[in-house]
């Protein structure tokens, strides 16, 4: 063991590794901050740049991009209500109201600290629990995956805002949109309306761009930040000690939940962020104002999504199974450099495997350093004339949608969902449940129908496996708690009524 650790530290001590790590983190943050450019795209685009590098600098660059992009999406989410990556959509629910109060610096610094906590805890899990968690996830069959999707959808209930019915409508509409494309069982094309481009399903990134970025530009006026005149916007802030103390347990809990979610194949940082945010909101105390600029909301989603990046590496390194789309691309990069991830990795290339674990840890620290050292520059974007900013976001959004497949259909999808997003805002239908349902819809349908096929048409299969049963029971408890909580009189509304009477 000592030899392995010495070998790993030798690999990590090369200056080239550190140059590549910081270059990866910085470019990853830029990629993540551009709506439409995901971590997957960033890693995929830069894999060819690693051909000339040796394995460690190459992995440092790619892991740096991965971690940097996942955090980078938070910056436009906080500043412009435009999540750079799907995983940042949960953060904006509380970060943007904070920004509107003139507390963008506070929100960004809290996001950076929470991301560091999530990343470090997730990597510690990665180091110590890799084999156990991976084996647990390996036991998942259709029943468990379906139950996991149901659990994820049940969490939407707490994202529904004022009206649970409107939240449910957004969820079911998202599930219906997830059925566009090829039927997962029979392969029959569904709801294509003459467009072959939709055969692979509703393109997720253009939908995200439309619902959040374009809808923001189209609806304009009301969504523009309203910073109180008296309050001067601070362009750079160190983390508030009070916030760190207030959010520490939420961040730690979300990091654990995020790691577990990330380690489940198919569930990436985006699902982890929403899951952790919903779980935190479910346990809201009397003083917590989720959705109106609650620091705990930022801590939960940021810690959860960053921990999920480490979690996604667990099945990759121990079993050779990707935890999400980015790690699927990373597998290719490993193989490209002659390394086969899987159970034999620790046996055949022990030093390298531990060096990769170290890289993950240092990548999260590097994200923290770069996030703080560039915060002032990033915040300077707030000074740009909002008309120029909105015109720029419009173009960048369309380019982001187009660049995904060099297909103009994706731009039309983004535009359509931009208009739908404006409609949703005006009618009070929340877009976040729609987005989460779109992510989980494929998993739910595929595994439900696979389960039916495997169990001769009996729907009871979901109750016959202990893990799925537990997941479904948790989902039932979650929805019940949310409904009970919503029926309880809201202290805010009681106060409002009282003041009206007075």
């Amino acid at each position, binding site marked *: 063991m000592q030899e392995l650790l010495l070998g790993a530290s030798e690999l990590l001590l090369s200056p080239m590794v550190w140059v590549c790590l910081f270059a990866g983190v910085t470019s990853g943050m830029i990629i993540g901050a551009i709506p439409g450019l995901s971590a997957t795209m960033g890693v995929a685009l830069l894999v060819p740049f690693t051909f000339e590098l040796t394995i460690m600098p190459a992995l440092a660059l790619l892991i740096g991009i991965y971690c940097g992009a996942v955090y980078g999406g938070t910056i436009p989410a906080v500043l412009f209500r435009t999540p750079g990556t799907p995983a940042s959509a949960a953060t904006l629910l509380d970060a943007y109201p904070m920004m509107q109060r003139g507390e963008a610096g506070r929100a960004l610094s809290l996001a950076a600290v929470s991301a560091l906590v999530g990343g470090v805890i997730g990597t510690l899990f990665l180091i110590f629990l890799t084999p156990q968690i991976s084996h647990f996830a390996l036991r998942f069959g259709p029943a468990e995956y379906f139950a996991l999707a149901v659990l994820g959808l049940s969490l939407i209930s707490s994202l529904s805002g004022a009206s649970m*019915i409107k939240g449910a409508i957004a969820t079911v509409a998202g599930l219906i949109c997830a*059925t566009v494309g090829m039927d997962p069982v029979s392969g029959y094309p*569904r709801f294509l309306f003459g467009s072959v481009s939709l055969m692979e399903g509703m393109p997720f990134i253009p939908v995200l761009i439309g619902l959040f970025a374009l809808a923001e530009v189209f609806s304009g006026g009301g969504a523009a930040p309203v910073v109180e005149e008296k309050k001067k916007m601070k362009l750079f802030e160190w983390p508030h000690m009070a916030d760190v103390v207030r959010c520490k347990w939420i961040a730690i809990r979300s990091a654990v939940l995020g790691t577990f979610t990330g380690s489940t194949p198919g569930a990436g940082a985006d699902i982890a962020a929403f899951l952790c945010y919903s779980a935190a909101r479910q346990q809201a105390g009397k003083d917590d104002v989720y959705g109106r600029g609650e620091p705990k909301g930022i801590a939960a989603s940021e810690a959860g999504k960053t921990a999920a990046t480490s979690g996604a590496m667990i099945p990759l390194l121990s079993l050779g199974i990707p935890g999400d789309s980015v790690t699927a691309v990373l597998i290719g990069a490993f193989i490209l450099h002659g390394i086969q991830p899987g159970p034999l990795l620790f046996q055949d290339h022990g030093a390298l495997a531990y060096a990769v674990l170290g890289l993950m840890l240092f990548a999260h620290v590097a994200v923290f350093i770069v996030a703080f050292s560039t915060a002032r520059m990033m915040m300077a974007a707030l000074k740009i004339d909002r008309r120029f900013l909105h*015109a720029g976001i419009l173009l960048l959004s*369309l380019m982001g949608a187009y660049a995904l497949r060099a297909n103009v259909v994706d731009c039309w999808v983004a535009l359509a969902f931009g208009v739908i997003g404006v409609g949703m805002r005006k009618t009070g239908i929340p877009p976040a449940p729609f987005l989460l349902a779109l992510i989980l819809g494929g998993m739910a349908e595929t595994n439900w129908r696979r389960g039916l096929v495997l169990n001769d048409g009996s729907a009871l299969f979901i109750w016959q496996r202990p893990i799925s049963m537990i997941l479904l029971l948790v989902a039932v408890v979650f929805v019940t708690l949310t409904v009970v909580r919503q029926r309880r009189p809201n202290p805010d509304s009681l106060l409002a009524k009282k003041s009206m009477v007075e």
Partner: protein
Amino acid sequence: MKQLALSDKLAFGFTALFAVGTIGAARALPVIENAHSGPGSFPQALGWVLLFLALAGVYQGMKSSPPAAAEDEDSEARIRLPWLGGLTVAYLLVMPYLGFISSTALLFAAALAVLGYRRFAPALATGFLFAFLLYWGFGIMMNVSLPQGWVG
């Protein structure tokens, strides 16, 4: 029974329409014999759930929620969606013929005009600068194929 708020009328009306459309489209999908579920079964079930939710929303809205006062929206915000949406449609239609850089610069300048910036020359210059930057980033660095068109 109270009257539904306009936003609720629109929300539940469109939801019901979407649900009926989904059910209709799902019913048109083939039913596979001796299979436990077909390509249309899941979306059809979701369509019925959505229709039920729309009706439940109407019932709940009429029973409890008072009609919300119409939101005060300034005239600039009201014209943003049709103008910017229309410009985007025109951009997507024209781009393959005109070319990426020129059409992007024009969209940028036109969008700025809609957003209230009336100085056309600086807007167009910034548009060209932005278009070149996008072209360099996406077209050259990332190798994304962008339309050349007649002008470029």
